[in-house]
């Protein structure tokens, strides 16, 4: 049900085609295994550390060229274009019903060179400063990073993707050029095309036209951290406290396993079919906002239970107690199977949308896994896998991050 064709091209690029017969729209996403976490790296024997937010800054600048604004050029072709940066990925994409071939050439041209002037860097700083301030008004954004800050002391996932106003101010032309040369390489790149297209033609065109840097940099990877996480509280204008209860994941298992087991466990604890959730709602400790998110990278991972309300301490107790119960008494294999099958169904639902399909494939590429590895892992998952992961849900591996109203 998840149909995907892939090929590693001569220029180092890993190419995926997601065939969608009958779709009007086509989407191409070009993603680099380079994200906000990659500020430290070594290149040609030198150790380099750059300011936070540089990957995101570079993403903004790719849309400009000496003569053209790429946004404009895409729009003139009747194509929507955009980009995003997260911890591990910088992705550029466009989508449209016509001019796909020309769009693809334009996308290749856009990432194939970098145009920087002191003036256009200065202008971008102003825009990014407003972007950062927009995030500052988003309590969910704040709490997300505070959770990771609470769990990790060294891992760069603790820093906000866009950096801070101060770190962005430090960014220079040389730094941007260095990061571009180091990470915008063929080996570091994936091209994903979704829609009613011929895979062979896409592979050939990409091989011929996509010119990227060679060589590259060596990334720094971080060891799993020990020591009790800290709790972080922040103040914002919110109607009631917002909380995240995060548990650090060990990274000694495959990313596919961590994603699948993480999703099943979090469903056991927080989904509407969960007994724990039912009990918490009955006691008026949890409400509709109660849910979860797994944040997973190669060298970090967090299982995060989130919600709104003042009773987060009691909820944290209930979660760790319940996890301990499952550790003691086990969990039924039928239950695990039902949830694993439902996760597969949700993956099929998501794959109907070309953007969410493509971004999942990009995400997998940057975590050295494949979407089908994850899909198929759900068939393998059993009670033992679940309990092995459940063992991480203990207090000395937990952070509670809260955003509460001013003066609360």
């Amino acid at each position, binding site marked *: 049900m998840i149909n995907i064709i892939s090929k590693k091209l001569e220029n180092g690029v890993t190419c995926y085609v997601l065939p*969608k*017969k*009958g*779709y*009007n*729209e086509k989407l191409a996403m070009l993603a680099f295994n380079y994200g906000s976490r990659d500020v430290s790296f070594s290149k040609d024997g030198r150790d380099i550390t750059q300011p936070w937010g540089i990957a995101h800054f570079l993403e903004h600048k790719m849309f400009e060229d000496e003569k053209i*604004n790429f946004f*404009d050029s895409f*729009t*003139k*072709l*009747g*194509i*929507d*274009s*955009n980009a995003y940066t997260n911890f591990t990925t910088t992705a550029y994409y466009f989508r*449209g*019903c*016509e001019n796909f071939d020309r769009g693809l050439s334009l996308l290749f041209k856009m990432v194939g060179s970098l145009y920087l002037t002191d003036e256009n860097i200065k*202008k971008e700083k*102003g*825009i*990014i400063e*407003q*972007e950062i*301030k*927009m995030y*500052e*008004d988003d309590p*969910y954004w704040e709490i997300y990073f505070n959770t990771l800050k609470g769990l990790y002391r060294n891992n760069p996932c603790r820093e906000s993707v866009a950096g801070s106003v101060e770190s962005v101010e430090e960014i220079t032309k040389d730094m941007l050029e260095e990061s571009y040369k180091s990470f915008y390489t063929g080996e570091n790149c994936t091209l994903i095309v979704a829609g009613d297209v011929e895979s062979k033609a896409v592979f050939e065109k990409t091989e011929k036209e996509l010119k990227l840097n060679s060589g590259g940099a060596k990334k720094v990877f971080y060891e799993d951290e020990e020591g009790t996480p800290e709790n972080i509280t922040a103040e*914002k*204008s*919110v*109607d009631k406290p*917002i909380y995240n209860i995060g548990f650090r994941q060990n990274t000694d298992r495959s990313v596919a396993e961590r994603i699948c087991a993480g999703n099943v466990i979090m469903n056991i604890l927080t989904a*509407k*079919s*969960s*007994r724990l*959730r*039912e009990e918490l*709602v009955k006691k*008026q400790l949890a*409400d*509709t*906002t109660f849910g979860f998110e797994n944040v997973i990278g190669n060298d970090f991972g967090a299982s995060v239970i989130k919600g*709104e309300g003042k009773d987060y301490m009691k909820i944290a107790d209930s979660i760790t107690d319940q996890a301990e119960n499952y550790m003691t008494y086990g969990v039924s294999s039928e239950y695990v199977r*039902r*949830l694993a*099958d*439902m996760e597969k*169904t*949700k993956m*099929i*639902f998501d*794959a*109907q*949308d*070309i953007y969410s399909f493509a971004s999942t494939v990009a995400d997998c590429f940057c975590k050295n896994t494949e979407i089908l590895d994850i899909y198929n892992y759900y068939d393998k998952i059993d009670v033992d896998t679940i309990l092995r992961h459940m063992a991480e849900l203990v207090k000395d591996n937990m952070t509670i991050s809260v955003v509460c109203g*001013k003066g609360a």
Partner: protein
Amino acid sequence: MKKTDLKEGISIYTEETDKFDIETFCILLRLPLTRETATSNALVSKILLKGCNKYITEREIAVRLEEIHTVMDCSIMKKGEEQIIQLYFRTEKEFSEEAFELAGNILFEPIFNNIEEAKRDLLSDIEGLVNNKRRYAVERCIENMCSNEDFGVSGDGYAEDIDSVDIKEAYEYVMDNSNVAVMSVGSTKSHDLEEYVRRYLPFAERDNRPADNSYLSSPVKVKEIEEKMDVSQGKLAMGLRLNIDPKSSEWYRAMVANELFGGSANSELFMEAREKESLCYYISSKLLRFKSIMIIEAGIEGKNKEKVEEIVENAFDNISDEDIETAKTSIVNSFNAAGDKAERIMDYNLGQIILDIPYDMAEGAEEIKKVRSIEGVFNSCVLDTVYMLRS
């Protein structure tokens, strides 16, 4: 979509396609949006998934959904001056009938055993709006702008009205008075859907076409509203009256003009305020068709408000026919792209049903292609309300 009238006030709509690997359905209960009924209608949307005769708790319903590989959600939509309860579900092909059976149980045999919980859920939605400052600013702008119209009523209802709602009465009101549309997108055939509805959704006949939206207005004085809150960045929302008949062909000209004005990343507003002046990260304009309103929103420093207002004013003079083809292509493109998403197919068709105009998406795209000039289209457009959230 293909329409079949089953009974007075109950219609089904199917889009048969083999594009998707899944089936998408929705049951829409359309009601007039009024201050008196907004809260009770919204509460009904919260109680339905809490339990029914066959699956008596929210958890049992959720377990059943997992068994039949289905995701289901019940929500409230505000579309012009209508408040619509939507039961939306997606499923794998082999489970369509089971999914309808469950939807029937949920809609027709609720047991109201968790009324307090539903009330808390609704309150949490209403109070939670403030956590999204951007949406909050737009909602507050509309509320102030349309304070004398039903459109100014909140689709989520009001905290102070929750306690006094009698849920059974509210439920009966919804079931007896809503205009019903059932939609499917996927491989489901029209006669299959008809059969599902006859078997599992025994709605009685009703005579209740919702009233048309009002859209003409010429404010004498601009309403200036400022609200203080602890924010890092100010949120500006401006509401304008277009005074263009949303059913007329003039509307398609307005869509093209809006694309150039503030509807895209190379629109006048975006280029001036963001790219040239670095005043903001986001600025955009959108049209609320049912009410013939334009909303402009931007995240800016409080001190730059006048500058941005000036850019907005100038932008009306700076858009021209020069870039019209690009804008048209972009809109036609989004019509075509909408056909790849079940929710957007449903949403588009619901819009046409509300406006009572027959165009399908392809015809909508054709209307856009016919636009030759945007000259003068915003001549009757007047600024009504300027709302600013700042610290």
